[in-house]
């Protein structure tokens, strides 16, 4: 069951997933336009775990070809809003 997300909701869901994987992350200090993997020291496993968590929480299945869209916080939020709106 997918529900449409506002940008704020998408941001908090994403940051919640990241903090679960990388507990030392300060949500307020994540820069919207810098690549997440560099900023937060996420490796491919961390990234996969974030995707899995989003799937569990939001029901969104991010295909591999869309991984690039989750490069930064901003692009990832846009992506999640778009995906959930489409599902409505």
């Amino acid at each position, binding site marked *: 069951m997918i529900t449409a997300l506002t940008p704020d909701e998408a941001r908090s869901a994403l940051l919640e997933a990241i903090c679960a994987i*990388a507990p030392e992350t300060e949500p307020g200090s994540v820069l919207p336009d810098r690549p997440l993997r560099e900023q937060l020291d996420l490796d491919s*496993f961390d990234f996969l775990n974030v995707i899995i968590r989003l*799937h569990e929480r939001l029901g969104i299945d991010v295909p*591999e070809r869309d991984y690039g869209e989750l490069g930064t916080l901003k692009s990832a939020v846009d992506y999640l809003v778009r995906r959930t709106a489409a599902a409505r």
Partner: protein
Amino acid sequence: MYEFRMPALGADMEAGTLVEWKVKSGDPVRRGQVVAVVETQKGAIDVEIWQSGVVERLVVAPGMRVPVGEVLALLRTEGGEAPAGVAAVPASPAEAQRAATAPPAAPPSASAPAERVLRISPSARKRARELGLDLATVRPPTPDAPISLADVERAHAAASVRAAETPVQAADWRGQMRAAIAAAMSRSKREIPHYYLATDIDVTRLDAWLTAENLKRSVAERLLPVVPLMKAVALALHTVPELNGVWTGGAFQPSSQVHLGMAVAMRGGGLVAPAIHDADRKSLDELMANLRDLVTRVRGGRLRSSEMADPTVTLTSLGDLGVDQVVGVIYPPQSAIIGLGTVSERPWVEHGALVVRKVVTATLSADHRVSDGHRGALFLTELRTLIQEPEKLG
């Protein structure tokens, strides 16, 4: 109206079959008159009625089997009203008693003596002896309960975990790890004469196969590219056993099992290389699950030291960060480390033409005391061959 019911003719009679009516509707009956015949387990019994009146209606037809207490016939009584006769089987007095009485309180336990004798069940005592477990260390769930078999099993399991999991204070954790890495790497460079080989491997087919494979899978089941590469490395080691084993006591001991150490960076610095046991014999899904579990725990800081103890070879992959190649330092007492760089699109010459291919650079650092370059090259060649047929890596 008086209800004439199937009488209980014996303590163990539950039902009877109406064989015959001796009266019909409209007949007057006297108290004590035999009005029906009922067949029971013991035979046919004449049944009397205990109320005078006129039969209003026969409710049950001959041949029917009815339980005790069931209405057989209705009787119109002379006064019109049936006397307040005794009609129904009473509710079980015991039930009434049970309902009315609270369960008896447990008898008060004897006042605890100053010094308690340890109360231990016989099977708990026997099991503790088998396990060599000191019963004084076993705690029952409540202080006054005896020690049971389950308590012993639990205590044993906890002791095993404690033995394996030497708890490390968080504050010392990084410092100790740094010191351990320093010691291991210094020893490696001091003692192990390394030689190094590198080769570029076309992984276009692997990439395409993996993409197709992952499309079929849900998020949680997807494979990372490193997983088939791990399997290929583990299998390729069969060709050159000198790369898989430990140097101990001045000689190399090859290992029949491939325990593949995976170098995993700690968040914020530090490195561990825990083993995935029998990597050559595991399916890709199993490898993925093992790796995910390991990495998640390493990066969450929850790795058990026992898991780091026994790799027979190490694989390091720095592909995430875009480096072209990594040339590793061997973890003593192992004899080889394989490095994988980033998978990237590169110009590639094939059959005299320039094409774009997905390529990864694989390196081998090996102990020259154990093997030499030719053997190492054989390994990399086998690795390349295996990677070309990803579907066979299953």
